[in-house]
């Protein structure tokens, strides 16, 4: 379909000035954000300048290619302006953390763009899916702007131990006299971002292995398959404990591995086995298709076949699996932290927060359960969204 026929088929395109003006405004806002501490930290400000320019270019490119409508543009521009307005009202907090503000802005704009892009599907989503989406959005925004929202800093000791709710500390203080609310907010940022990175890594390893296995077959398939079989034969929590105890303080070329990196890699490798199974099964069905045969006859390499032929067609089950895997990794990570072997103190983390303050529960205080509730809420939200997504993609397939 050429551009001209698209134009005539759609209602009149919205004015290009909306996107131009709003991108310029955002650009200007980000520049001010970074330049105001030029004296305090010159290099950071310059880095921010570069980031702002890159970001503007990317937004313009994406927005131009979007199938746009006036209403959609209004939503995006309005949400962006709203964020900027809030930032300007609470300027003294926002200006302290330019990167968090920038990241928050990115999240708001990305969500607005995605919502407009997928509005047709979203409109028909059931209330449970909406609930899940709202929960996820809320968590992501909190995680992105943690230092701005949190009343204190992450590891600051601000009062005496186990203070009650209310007053200066909204949710009281923890076993070392740190503010609960602050720890909760920072915990969102740490736990979610580490779980997300781990899931991404697991998907990269698992999907690549699975597709390679499906596309190459033969020995590669056999070897990878058997390795995964053995890895899956050992219960993952036990295996993770074994690996963590072995590689703690382990060094490569004289460099000690950072415990966080170790944690991420171990969980990702253990979890990639599940992704491998799925990717291989889905890939197997796609590899036998005619269009893959054609691309091979055309002389395309293995990388092309995997990224351009298999990957796009394996997307829906993989996306759904991503959600489920994320939940699993998230629960796994907090279980490890709860056992005292995951994310290490003083980094705020939901699993270890429950553990460290568990004594309060025997006095009937529910504060230590708040992080556990936060974990549960997020996993429920993601599960709801995945359910809806699976239902939709499988439903679409039934129609055809």
């Amino acid at each position: 379909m050429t551009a001209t026929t698209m134009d005539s088929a759609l209602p009149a395109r919205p004015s290009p000035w909306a996107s131009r003006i709003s991108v310029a405004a955002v650009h200007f806002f980000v520049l001010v954000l970074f330049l105001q501490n030029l004296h305090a930290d010159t290099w950071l400000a310059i880095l921010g300048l570069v980031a702002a320019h890159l970001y503007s270019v990317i937004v313009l490119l994406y927005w131009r290619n979007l199938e746009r409508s006036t209403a959609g543009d209004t939503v995006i521009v309005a949400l962006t302006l709203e964020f900027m307005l809030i930032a300007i009202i609470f300027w003294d907090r926002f200006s302290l953390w330019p990167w968090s503000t920038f990241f928050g802005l990115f999240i708001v704009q990305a969500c607005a763009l995605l919502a407009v892009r997928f509005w047709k599907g979203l409109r028909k989503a059931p209330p449970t899916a909406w609930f899940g989406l709202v929960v996820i959005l809320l968590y992501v925004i909190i995680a992105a702007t943690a230092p701005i929202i949190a009343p204190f800093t992450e590891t600051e000791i601000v009062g005496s131990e186990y203070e009650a709710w209310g007053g200066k500390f909204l949710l009281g203080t923890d076993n070392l006299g740190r503010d609960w609310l602050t720890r909760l907010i920072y915990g969102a940022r740490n736990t979610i971002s580490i779980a997300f990175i781990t899931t991404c890594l697991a998907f990269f390893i698992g999907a690549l292995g699975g597709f390679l296995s499906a596309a190459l077959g033969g020995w590669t398939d056999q070897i990878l398959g058997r390795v995964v079989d053995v890895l899956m034969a050992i219960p993952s929590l036990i295996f993770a404990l074994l690996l963590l105890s072995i590689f703690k303080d382990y060094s490569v070329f004289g460099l000690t591995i950072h415990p966080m990196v170790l944690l991420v890699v171990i969980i990702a490798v253990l979890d990639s086995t599940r992704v491998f199974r799925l990717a291989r099964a889905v890939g197997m069905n796609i590899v036998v298709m005619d269009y893959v045969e054609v691309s091979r006859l055309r002389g395309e390499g293995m990388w092309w076949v995997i990224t351009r032929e298999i990957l796009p067609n394996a997307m829906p089950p993989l996306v759904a699996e991503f959600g489920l895997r994320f939940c699993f990794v998230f629960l796994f990570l907090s279980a490890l932290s709860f056992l005292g072997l995951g994310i290490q103190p003083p980094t705020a983390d939901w699993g270890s927060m429950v553990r460290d303050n568990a004594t309060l529960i025997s006095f009937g205080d529910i504060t230590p359960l708040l992080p556990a509730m936060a974990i549960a809420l997020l996993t429920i939200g993601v599960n709801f969204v995945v359910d809806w997504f699976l239902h939709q993609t499988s439903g679409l397939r039934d129609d055809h």
Partner: protein
Amino acid sequence: MDKILKMVAQRLALGLLTMFVVSLIIFFAVNMLPGDVCQEILGQSQTPETVAACRRELKLDLPWYDRYFTWLVGILQGDMGRSLASQREISELIGVRLGNTLFLALVAAIMSVPVALVLGVLTALYRNSLFDRTINALTLTSISFPEFFVAYILILFLAVNWGWFPSISNISPDLSIWERIYRTSLPALTLSLVVIAHMMRMTRASIINLLASPYIEMANLKGLSRSHVIVHHALPNALAPIINVVVINLAYLVVGVVIAEVVFVYPGLGQLLVDSVSKRDIPVVQASCMIFAATYILLNLTADVLAIATNPRLMHPR
């Protein structure tokens, strides 16, 4: 029948091979450590002579295959070496705890399997009703909860607020069986809640899968009642996947006890493992990992074999 025996034998051989590879992994993972056990034991007081003597004593100067087979044979005979932290025999440390863990898993299994099966059949029977949706939402929620959350909620309500159960389940061998069950009930309940959800969902799914088959339609057309169709026509054919899921969940029970044991300070193998990991007591970690892995593989193997054995198509080949 030959075919079944052959398949079962194949699975068993595969299981043994997996066990062998797993033991290799566990053995070599520990051998990849920088330094060795002797340096860890001697710590500050090490001199080249004492280290060499210690290595001779622990037979670390032998080649790896020699050590590996000695270790493997030792484990098979119940001799797993000594703990680094307490210098006690590991088999002595593990013996009682393994019993406790298996007891906990058993209690949890007895509590959860019947409930899960009945709920699964009922939700399949009344599917898309309010009852079905409520149960589904509840199980989805309990799957989404971290285990320690479930455990602490139970402690908060059943132990702290209402005082029905003790919040710490310290059991010892000299307790009567009822006292033991009473003290084990909270951790067992925690495990059950997680496992019931999985089992119930799988039971429901496998029965509903069958409801579209022609013979079910036939039974419906004959005018049989819905409950009769489900219990007499669908359930026997859904047995294979259900048994499979039950056994896999039992395997999960044995392994999933770690968190529950830590929360309730239950003196089981899982807690020993966690303690040893934080103390870096490698021989104990090695031994308990081996036991957990063996149980897990064994139960998964059982699931495979049962799935083959209960498959009507294999039982009555044409």
